[in-house]
């Protein structure tokens, strides 16, 4: 099987207004909303890199980057970082 490309989702919480567009329109349900309505990465491994969220974020708060060496741990690390960032925000 060909190596599946993996992607990292970086959310810049300082600019996020919790509109929910990214969560609602992600075709792979990568995000879920936290208590404040902001997106947190629920399953980074599901991301197929369509960049719908990046293009449709009205606040320039999402950056998707392709990860060269895909690994489950990298994805898990991303999810963890996002949750921590969300926690810092509160």
């Amino acid at each position, binding site marked *: 099987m060909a190596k599946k490309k993996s992607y990292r989702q970086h959310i810049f919480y300082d600019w996020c207004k919790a*509109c929910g*567009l990214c969560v609602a*329109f992600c075709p792979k349900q990568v995000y879920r909303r936290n208590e404040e309505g902001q997106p947190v990465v629920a399953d980074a491994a599901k991301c197929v890199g369509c960049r*719908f969220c990046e293009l449709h974020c*009205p606040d*320039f708060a999402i950056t998707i980057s392709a990860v060269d060496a895909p690994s489950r741990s990298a994805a898990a690390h991303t999810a963890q970082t996002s949750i921590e960032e969300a926690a810092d925000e509160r």
Partner: protein
Amino acid sequence: MKMEKVEQLRHYYLRHDKKFPHVWCPGCGNGIILGSLIRAIDKIGLSKDEVVLASGIGCAGRMPVYADFNTLHTTHGRALTFATGIKLARPELNLITVMGDGDATGIGGNHFIHAARRNLNLTAIIINNQIYGMTGGQYSPTTPYGAKAATATGGHLEHAFSIADLAVTAGASFVARGTVYHVPHLDKLIEQGIRKNGFAVIEIMAYCHTQFGRRNKMGDAVTMMEKLRDRAVAVKDPGAAGSPGTAVAAGASDTPGAAASAGALDSDSLDTLDGKFAIGVLTDVEKPDYIAEYARLRAASRLNAQNAGNAGK
């Protein structure tokens, strides 16, 4: 760490000394359009100094505040008049105006039709959210019949017109319509509009969930975005034919869904809350722009004057 392309664009084109997050409501399409505009300009390869971004009053009028071009924030409805003056004085600059539906076709309606008729090489981006959002939700020329607004609490009694149809009739050489849902498509339309030598109009269907959606029980930004996706129907590029294109079926998920019959694409459907409307390039004609015509007149006048001078000797 290497910066992603999208981050580079943000750092390069957005002003660093302005307050972010920007002023627009959560989920507003104006931010999406700003992103689209930046990508289009980057794709064309214009430097920041070669671009002038002018706007009138309203939510859309805030856009030049955030973008690091030569920018003007002008009076209500007069973005095109200021842009006309700049273009005549400095024809080498690329003039882009950003207006709302009320700004462009209500307050500045006369300037809009005559700018289209004059065919000066400007790009008019008109964000159509079907209401005056910033001033409190008064009805605009594009508010559909029966819709509720701050000044039409019992339902709107007047009928909406189609901005794109108006632009075609007034003589614009490039007219396109896009939505804030179909973003890659919108990038292309804006790019084509800026590249076009002549008056180019890009009507962008957006939504105002704060002033329009709430009054008409149309839900939040997500619901209104879904509605735009479902209402839009792609048209075939008419090329240089000059007439509004005919509807074609489109299948892919990021292009508009099931195409309706051609009858449903009547501009009358923009006068409803859920009718289908056409998106894509609606008109693209070649005709000499005002700057070229003026240069021709100058050359001819100079020749006449020389001939008259020679004859006098």
